[in-house]
């Protein structure tokens, strides 16, 4: 998957009104809560086969750090 497609799909999953960029801090989004965290975990699990734990999420803030946790090798 390209990083651009990932940003678009993640924004769609989270039902965001604004587009995401890699520098976006997910936890500073108005709509960030445990349900948003579940959606990110579910999306990453089904899209990349990577299981994120709540502990992983503690260490993730920006979309860039989420991409790093998923593994940059999984992106074109």
């Amino acid at each position, binding site marked *: 998957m390209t990083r651009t497609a990932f940003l678009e799909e993640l924004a769609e999953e989270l*039902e965001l009104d604004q587009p995401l960029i890699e520098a976006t801090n997910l936890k500073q989004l108005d*709509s960030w*809560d*445990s*349900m*948003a*965290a*579940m*959606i990110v*975990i*579910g999306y990453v*699990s*089904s899209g990349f086969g990577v*299981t994120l*734990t*709540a*502990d992983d999420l503690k260490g993730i803030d920006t979309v860039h750090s989420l991409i790093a946790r998923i593994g940059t090798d999984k992106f074109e």
Partner: protein
Amino acid sequence: MLQQFRGIEIKALSACIPKRIVGNDAFEDLIAGKELRMFERTVGITSRRWAEDGVTATDLGFEAASILFSEHPELKENISALVFLSQTPDYKLPFSSNILQDKLGLGRELLCLDLNAGCAGFVQGLGTAFSLASPVKNGRVLLIIAETMSRMLSYKDRGTTLLFGDGAAAMIIENTGDGSVESAFEYFTDGAHFDAIMIPEGGYRKPATAESLIEKEDAAGNKRTGLNLYMDGARVFDFTLREIAPSITKILTDSDTSKDDVDYFLMHQSNRFIIQQIAAQLGIPSEKALLNIETSGNTSGVSIPLLMSEKQEQVSKGKTLVCSGYGVGLNWANCILKNQKIKFTPLQEV
């Protein structure tokens, strides 16, 4: 701890739910719009059943047992133990099982036992009932699981109030000696997280006072009293994703059962997302992880027998079933039931 049984069966099972349907629209002051859509997409609950005022867990449990005995009157004879499992008993003491023994017209030569167990309660209670039936020739145990979780909720706490529902199930466990019926149980606990799900006041560590009734607001804006249910959602979420799948793999290994031989996985109906994640971690097809959370909510220990009742066509005829309960304690417990030929009554509204 691995427990294994041969010849102990769930002979019959009845379940009931209150007539009163509470849809998510009842919480529009608490959650609406996009947030509600996200809740329904992830947690998966659109409605739950709540008992009318004045109805207790023993009332629901009595109804479930009455339905069972009405359909199978022969199973009311020679019961050697009555186990009542609930977090919402009638009184702090005596046992609610004592009240049910009399109300159901059971004999006096009977072990009555209450278990204050939560979301792992079905497996814990079933293992206890199997243990009580096992040493007694033709031993027969009545296990009633009933909850009115709605009674302990703060309706101003988004972390709990949308999640829970009420219901009851009653089942007869019998030592039939049929060697083709096998089961295995494993239990786990982590008391270091006893405070992840709790009602903090009203026991003897923090007795109820006038202060206990005053609503307090937490950092997330949720309001509840010391007598309401509190749940640290993030901690519980992490626990379930970390512990449950490996523990299910362990019982499959310990009992020499391949996951491919399991017909259905009946996981505690806490959260659809969590159930689907556990199924994905186990590498099982999602259709093998049965679901009824959408219209039942989390009914704590009742959730698995309620799921069995709703899916009785699928689970009744000698199937291999894995049941997994997890929650307050923190406790988690799994069992494998092989070749059980459970007689179900139709799920009833009461």
